[in-house]
C-alpha cells in the first residue's frame, strides 16, 4: 500500500489530492502505467511525463526509480515558487 499525492493541475485533472494505492509496481514508471490504465482522467494527467515531476518520500526523484520501501509518492508539475 502506497500513499499517492497529486498537486496543482495533476490534482485537478485526476480530481483528488491523495489516495492509497494497492500495487505491486517496483518502479515509479510501473506505477504510472498502472494508473494510466485505470481511467481516462489518469491517462490524461500522465500523458506527458516530461511535464511532470515525482517525489519519493518527499525527495525529488526520477520515473525509473525503485519503489522499494517507499511509503509516499507525489506527482506534480515543475515547481513555480519564489
Amino acid at each position, binding site marked *: 500500500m502506497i500513499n499517492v*499525492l497529486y*498537486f496543482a493541475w495533476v490534482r485537478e485533472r485526476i480530481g483528488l489530492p491523495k489516495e492509497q494505492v494497492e500495487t505491486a509496481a517496483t518502479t515509479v514508471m510501473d506505477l504510472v502505467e498502472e494508473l494510466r490504465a485505470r481511467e481516462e482522467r489518469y491517462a490524461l494527467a500522465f500523458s506527458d511525463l516530461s511535464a511532470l515531476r515525482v517525489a519519493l518520500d518527499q*525527495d*525529488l526523484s526520477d520515473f525509473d526509480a525503485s519503489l522499494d520501501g517507499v511509503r509516499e509518492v507525489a506527482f506534480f508539475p*515543475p*515547481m513555480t*515558487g*519564489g
Partner: protein
Amino acid sequence: MRVVVQEAPFDAGAELNAFAKGDTDIGAVVSFTGVTRDVSGGLARMQIEHYPGMTERALTQICEEACARWALADVLVIHRFGTMEPGDNIMMVATASRHRADAFAAADFLMDYLKSRAPFWKKEVTADGADWVAAKDSDEDALDRWS
C-alpha cells in the same frame, strides 16, 4: 537559520530588522522579497499551493547547501501559501555574512534553487479564469550557474 512556511502575511521590514540582530561580526545583509506581480494588469489574485512536509524539508536542504558553500552568519527563508493580492509579498530570503560577495551569492543561489526545487505552484486568477503558471526553462537553466 530559520525556515518559515505560512499562509499569513509577513512584515518584510520587521523581518529584516530582526534578522541577524545583535551580531556585530557581520558586515553585509542581503534580502530578496518576491512580490505578487500583476503582469498583464488583470490579475485578481494569486493562489499558491504547496506540499506540506516536503516544502519545509526542501527549503531546509537548500539553506544547508548555501551555508556549506558560503560563510554565512545567518539565513532566513519565509514563503507563503494560499491566496495573495497583487502587490502582496509572497516570500523573502535574507543572508548575513562578513563579506558582501558571500551574502549576495548565497541569496541569489537560494532564490534559484527555491524557484525550481521547493514544491510550490502558483495559479493566476483573472476575470477570464484561472491558470497555473508555467515553469520557465530559464529558471531550470539558472541552476547550472551553481554546479
